[in-house]
């Protein structure tokens, strides 16, 4: 992981992912829903002729859905060689965490969230949660509609 983290907000909290993973940020893309897809899959978008899977991070992290009148933004990332887009509330700045210590996620975090966090950086005035992008997007086959099952496979 490089020391540059691209940040975004979800339900008021600041999250970060490795800058090198991020391809671009988008807004206002028409999304096609995919019936029968596992929860957390928010449909497909057309990214310059490529069909791309969209992941609803709020749903994956066990957070409340975004208010209907707010439009989410998308962060396009590369995970396991696949390009996908993540639904986030808003896109933030790039934060350099060089020299800062990655602390283990606090025990008070609810389970699905806790499992998908690598750790926490303390910034001036706020906390930055470093997201485990593989788990959060369900890459490497650890995607499951059943949260219970999910936590069981990562005790």
């Amino acid at each position, binding site marked *: 992981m490089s020391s540059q983290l691209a940040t975004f907000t979800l339900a008021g909290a600041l999250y970060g992912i490795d800058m090198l993973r991020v391809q671009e940020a988008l807004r206002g893309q028409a999304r096609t829903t*995919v019936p029968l897809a596992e929860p957390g899959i928010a449909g497909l*978008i057309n990214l*310059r002729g490529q*069909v791309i899977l969209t992941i609803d991070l709020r749903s994956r992290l066990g957070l409340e859905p975004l208010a209907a009148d707010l439009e989410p933004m998308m962060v396009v990332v590369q995970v396991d060689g696949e390009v996908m887009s993540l639904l986030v509330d808003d896109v933030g700045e790039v934060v350099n965490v060089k020299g800062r210590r990655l602390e283990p996620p606090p025990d008070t975090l609810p389970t699905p969230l806790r499992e998908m966090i690598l750790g926490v950086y303390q910034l001036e005035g706020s906390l930055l949660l470093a997201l485990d992008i593989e788990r959060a997007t369900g890459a490497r086959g650890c995607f499951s509609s059943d949260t219970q*099952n999910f936590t069981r496979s990562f005790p």
Partner: protein
Amino acid sequence: MGSMDEIVHEFVVESYENLDQLDQDLVALEGKPGSRELLSRIFRTIHTIKGTCGFLAFGRLESLAHAGESLLSELRDGRRVINQPTTDVLLRMVDTVREILASIETCGAEGDIGVEAVIEQIRAVLDDAATQSVPEVDIALTALGTMADGSEPTTASDSAIRVDVDVLDDLMRQVGELVLVRNQITRLVGGQFDGDLVRASARLSLVAAELQEGVMRARMQPIGHLWARMPRVVRDLAAVCGHRVRLEVVGGETELDRALLEAVKDPLVHLVRNAVDHGIEDAETRVAAGKPAEGVLTIRAYHAGGRVVIEVEDDGKGIDADRVVAVAVARGLRTPSQIAAMSAADVLQLLFLPGFSTAEALTNVSGRGVGLDVVHTKTEAIGGTVEVESRIGHGTLWRLRIPLTLAIISAIIVESAGELYCIPAVHVLKFIAPDGQSAGATVEHVGVAPVLRLRDTLLPLLGLRDVLESGHVRSPGVPSVIAVLQADTRCFGLIVDRVLDTEEIVVKPLTARLTGAGVYAGATLLGDGRVSLILDVPGIAHRSLIGQPMEADLEPTAVSPGPVGAANQVLVVGIAGGRRVAIPLPAVTRLERLSRDVVEHVGGREVVQYRGGIVPLVRLGGLLGQRVACVGEDLEQQGLLVVMFTRGSHTVAVEVQEALDIADDDVARHSQINDRGVLGSTVLGGRVTELLDVRHTVLTGDRQFFDGADVAPPDTTDVDRAVLGAVVGL
């Protein structure tokens, strides 16, 4: 070093191509022993290989090619005539060259493939010169003949270059994108009156269309590439079977997208082998039937109706429809009453059903685990169809219809619950507006299941909204449009809200996470740039049609009583998803409850230790397409409930969720929906219950279950009824 690897790679690729041609030429040479043209070409190929390996320091390959070259030069110079032993040894040389090339390709070195034996054989043929000397006159004649033939055929290599397939795929993708942008611009320009803009847009439209066609053409390859190896396949196989077969090929220049060419290869080889092995009779039988001793196998390719048609035809004994019927009934694939309602052509289509392939028809030649059902599935996977025509005593014709390209398909855009979906046109038979009183089609309800009565057939009816679980919130009334779809060998109706358009769509692959559900085959981009999902019609049929609550009496042909003693006892078990499955009790050997710890893995398959042996475990839920549910704590403690099937020394354990009942099953009440693993369904105790295809299930666990000495089927006395009762009572 990199450039060296590249040279070697190029050498391997080029040599493979040349060898395919060589196979063909050598076999052709047997028919035209004097052809100097063929001989020169063969000689040149081997000479080239020899020269290049000298340069690349592949010593073994060089010495082998050298030996072959010596023999060929004698043939070419007319110092000997080709005969069967010579052809055999030359073909063997070609095979060995291939083996060495394969080794070079994988590990970069020749490996330790023995060439001495083959070289020895070539020497032996060479030393046999005395008997092979040819009169001088013949040489003069052949020489004359060659001159009369004119110059040798020009090779394409002068004006062609080799292009990496990835580059072509990339181009294709980009052109697809361009076409979409073009569509978008055309739409935007639609409302404009600026003459220049409209003209520029029209020109863009034209250029894009031409470019698309050009790139598609670049991906095309003549199908002749594919059957370059067929003469060899036929020759070798005919020799093994002791049949005399002449191969004729027509239309080798017919072009097909290279991805399709690859996909159609196995089915075609299978059909050819099948024809040589089973279609064409041996010489005596043929002569006795008044036919020439030599059978003729024709492979033909041509364009028809925007598709490529490939035919494999033999003039052999034909297929006995009565035997097909007998086998289909014996295997429980169809009931006699169903067959009575079938046309003659439909009866032959039964050959493509999974599980049809008869054990006695399997020989080591064509029975290589690839049944006709695989030919069918593989052809359908690329949007093609396969059909068969046969006349007893006159021969059989297999016909594959293949789309020209995979990347662009014709699809029908439909709307359901506000979203647009694409249905590949190849699956669509027709559309029916039920409220429009179209040609004798009515929707009826039998129980809760809607069916479509289309003239005199009943089709199961599915709502796309139900399939996609997108809710019933649509304006009340009858369904708007029913698409009559065909997948595999069955038809069904799919209710959609609206039919919009037919379009040529560019198929985009979909991540496995979404295709896993078996409902989507891919995605595409529509004119407005939106993503639209392409429906997987066979997948939907598979997913939704089994276990549909349909009762026996709804099938007009099924009302006749079944075989004598129609009421059989069945064990009713439950699997995930609340589904109930009936297993014929006589087939069951035992019910056991095992600890979940005993499940182990052998080579990726699950096994259990049972009575000191290792027994394959089949998960019935998984087999019948039920998604594996998470095991709850309570079930975890209860352990694993398995139904044991034993035959001789073979045992297979089939895991079920619960044993529910033992019931009397009335065969006459069976409905005829069937699918892999399920023979049909019936109503037992007021609940729809699927009938297990025991044969298929057991074979999934143990392919050899029914092999070996014929053991009497498990007797009911073997069933430990006490145990059975005890478990059922749990």
